[in-house]
């Protein structure tokens, strides 16, 4: 079969950072008219490979071809000129500028607002990515900011789009819409690369898949020609796949019996609630009602899953239950100490520049008196590192030096180190690779077995359903208890009856 030149090809690319061989002769070939999934665990080299493709890093060795022409990019601008566009996981927008100004930024010559606005409208017409050119970027919802990032690339004539974890910031419905858009867009001369570690997502839309493991391309095939197990095996390594059943926790059918009691807002009959809130409302500083008259009880030894579309009031619910927020009205009855794993661990759970011992001392720091027992803290930290199998860092290492997965495990370890009666976790597996995800979920289940009252929210509905004994659905500030039934929960999240 004679094939036209691929839209983008990287061959035998190597890259070394200090002592780490990030890429070792890895390759990827993106055919025109396809969506290409680039899969791999955290640290497998996915982002590095694409940063090289986009001119943000120089390869030590290997070559880049765009439509059959060999290229050497000195900068992202060069890559842009060659028809590549990249949407980063963390958006590169100037929040105070308008949509049109953001699109024009980095261009040459005069800024003609009307012409840019016209271009944005034309792209909207052509691709369906509609944006108001005069809107201020910072005021847009996240999904629109992402559209803006894509439009920026398209306005510069990108015909190959590289999307780095594009769905990480989106609600499930938004994610589906985005993926459907990518699928529709990548036709003819165009192509898209999805960097992801969400297997299902990738397989749903991709034509081809490339799997990296430790900087090496271990698999590159059309999706239709490769069984799912082989992809998982490629990501994890064959031996490891068969050694343990744990890695696929949230993809498996949850091993769970029928609910003990008919699901409701109350704790299971006969068990005393550990956490309970009654008619609690939260009104934010701008007077917006975030949570309206929420009532629920959670008993020891159960996992209550919270399902919601981002921004429905679930963040406030979790903070009420963990004592991190006082209700505007209503009552909250919780123990003095509730373990809390916030979604943004780097901002809310850790002081990145402090050592692990200091981060351990953070728990209960608000109420501590007298001297800090540093020796005891050091011992506690050592124990936590050992029990939670956090390797590669000493007690005196700064929290920044841990990988994302180890940071999350450390946060869990710290929060559980005080033997609390309850655990509240918000998006505990966000951004983690399969192995770290499995670890964290196993710890959450272990907390239930140890008799803790556990509340878990996840953006990933399947993860909530796989874990939860009962589900609380939050929609527009109202809380409803339900059985973990995918269909019903999904409808309730969207507000359908």
């Amino acid at each position: 079969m004679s094939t036209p030149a691929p839209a983008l090809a990287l061959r035998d690319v190597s890259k070394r950072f200090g002592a780490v061989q990030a890429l070792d002769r890895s390759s990827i070939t993106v055919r025109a008219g396809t969506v290409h999934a680039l899969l791999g665990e955290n640290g497998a080299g996915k982002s590095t490979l694409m940063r090289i493709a986009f001119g943000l890093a120089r390869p030590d060795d290997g070559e880049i071809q765009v439509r059959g022409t060999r290229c050497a990019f000195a900068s992202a601008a060069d890559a842009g000129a060659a028809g590549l566009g990249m949407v980063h996981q963390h958006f590169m927008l100037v929040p105070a500028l308008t949509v049109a100004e953001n699109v024009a930024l980095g261009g040459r010559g005069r800024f003609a607002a009307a012409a840019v606005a016209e271009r944005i409208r034309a792209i909207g017409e052509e691709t369906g990515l509609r944006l108001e050119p005069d809107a201020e970027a910072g005021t847009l919802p996240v999904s629109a900011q992402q559209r803006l990032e894509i439009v920026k690339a398209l306005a510069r004539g990108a015909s190959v789009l590289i999307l780095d974890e594009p769905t990480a910031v989106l609600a499930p419905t938004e994610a589906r819409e985005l993926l459907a858009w990518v699928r529709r867009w990548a036709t003819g001369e165009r192509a898209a690369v999805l960097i992801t570690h969400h297997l299902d997502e990738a397989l749903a839309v991709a034509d081809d898949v490339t799997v990296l493991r430790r900087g090496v391309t271990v698999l590159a095939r059309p999706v239709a020609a490769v069984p799912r197990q082989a992809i998982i095996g490629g990501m994890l390594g064959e031996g490891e796949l068969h050694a343990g059943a744990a890695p696929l926790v949230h993809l498996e059918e949850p091993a769970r019996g029928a609910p003990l009691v008919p699901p409701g807002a109350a704790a299971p009959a006969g068990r005393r609630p550990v956490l309970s809130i009654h008619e609690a409302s939260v009104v934010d500083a701008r007077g917006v009602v975030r949570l309206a008259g929420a009532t629920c009880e959670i008993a020891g030894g159960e996992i209550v899953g919270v399902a919601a579309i981002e921004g429905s009031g679930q963040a406030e619910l979790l903070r009420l239950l963990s004592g991190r927020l006082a209700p505007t009205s209503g009552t909250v009855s919780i123990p003095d100490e509730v373990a809390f794993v916030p979604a943004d661990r780097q901002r809310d759970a850790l002081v990145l520049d402090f050592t692990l011992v200091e981060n351990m001392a953070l728990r209960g720091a608000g109420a501590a008196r007298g001297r800090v027992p540093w020796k005891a803290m050091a011992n506690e930290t050592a124990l936590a590192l050992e029990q939670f199998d956090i390797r590669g860092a000493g007690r005196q290492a700064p929290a920044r030096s841990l990988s994302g997965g180890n940071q999350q495990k450390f946060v869990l370890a710290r929060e559980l180190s005080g033997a609390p009666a309850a655990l509240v976790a918000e998006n505990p597996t966000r951004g983690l690779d399969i192995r770290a995800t499995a670890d964290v979920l196993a710890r959450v289940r272990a907390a239930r077995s140890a008799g803790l009252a556990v509340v878990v929210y996840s953006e990933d509905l399947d993860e909530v359903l796989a874990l939860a004994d009962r589900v609380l659905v939050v929609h527009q500030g109202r809380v409803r208890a339900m059985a973990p039934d995918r269909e019903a929960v999904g409808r309730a999240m969207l507000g359908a009856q």
Partner: protein
Amino acid sequence: MSRVRSSPLVAAMGIAASTLLLLVVMLAAGGFDVGAALSALVSGAAGSPTAFLSGTLVRATPLLLTGLAVTVAFQAGVLNIGAEGQLLAGAAVATAVGLGVPAGLLTVLLALAAGASAGAAWAAIAAVLRQRFGVLEVISTIMLNFVAQLTVAWLVRGPLQEPSHIYPQSEALPMVARLPALVPGTRLHWGFALGVAAAFAASFVMRRTAAGFRLRVVGANPFAAAVAGRINATRVAFGAFVVSGALAGLAGATEVGGVTFALYETLSPGYGYSAIAVALLARLDARLVILSAVLFGGLEAGAVAMQRDAGVPSVVVNVVEATLILMVLAASRLDALMGSVDDTTLAPEAGPPTRDRPR
């Protein structure tokens, strides 16, 4: 994980060497006799016990206390640029108390306490503005510096003016309101010992106690402080602000009680501004503030001698001081870029350079 870190000693020596080089270049460019100027600088700062004790350490004292004030505030993420105003408030109130209360053994202690309280109260104005109305303390404290400066100018021409109403200064403090000499026969007073004790106390509190840990956490990441530590970040920052003001106020009180013995409008040649440099040079480490205050005290004392003996304008030393700070900031930035994460984040907007001083 391996981390690249330049050793603090190597960095300090590099900075010292380049400072000296810069000084030499400036002197040569100005057509001065480099050798004579440098020897005047050194002998003025440390040429004799008297030069060191009565010159360098006396000048280091207010720099030490205000340097600690800045350190405490910056560690808590409070950008208090108002040590100068808090120092003046402390000096004014300490003078009033020293002159006003009946003479007794406690007069000097009362004056010191009053000075510290006045500095705290002056800082509290900015702290309340920040807490209640979100007013940036960088702006409010600078503004309050001018208010304090002008208030002192009014005081020494009004309520606190000396009885003959000729000079813009207060009456001289009675002996009971003065700080005794630390080393008999020199101008070095007990304020220096107080400053050293305060530095060790601040260092202990910061490293060992729960309150000091809270302060550092709030400065390093107020979000994690609130969520993970359940720390009332607003209250901690307020407390740090007020303690910072108290230390600066104490500097004013010791300056009046130990050096000038009266209130003048030109009491401080900008100690509260140099304090920012002193604190940053010490990398916000309370114990290192002692060393950096002595270094700055020495440079100032040496500058006076250089002007007197070699005819070099003392502002040359101000330029050197400012350059020193820029180099320290650049070095810590470089350190951070090279992967070291242990140094405290220094706010790049951390205040104006040492200003041109009236002498």
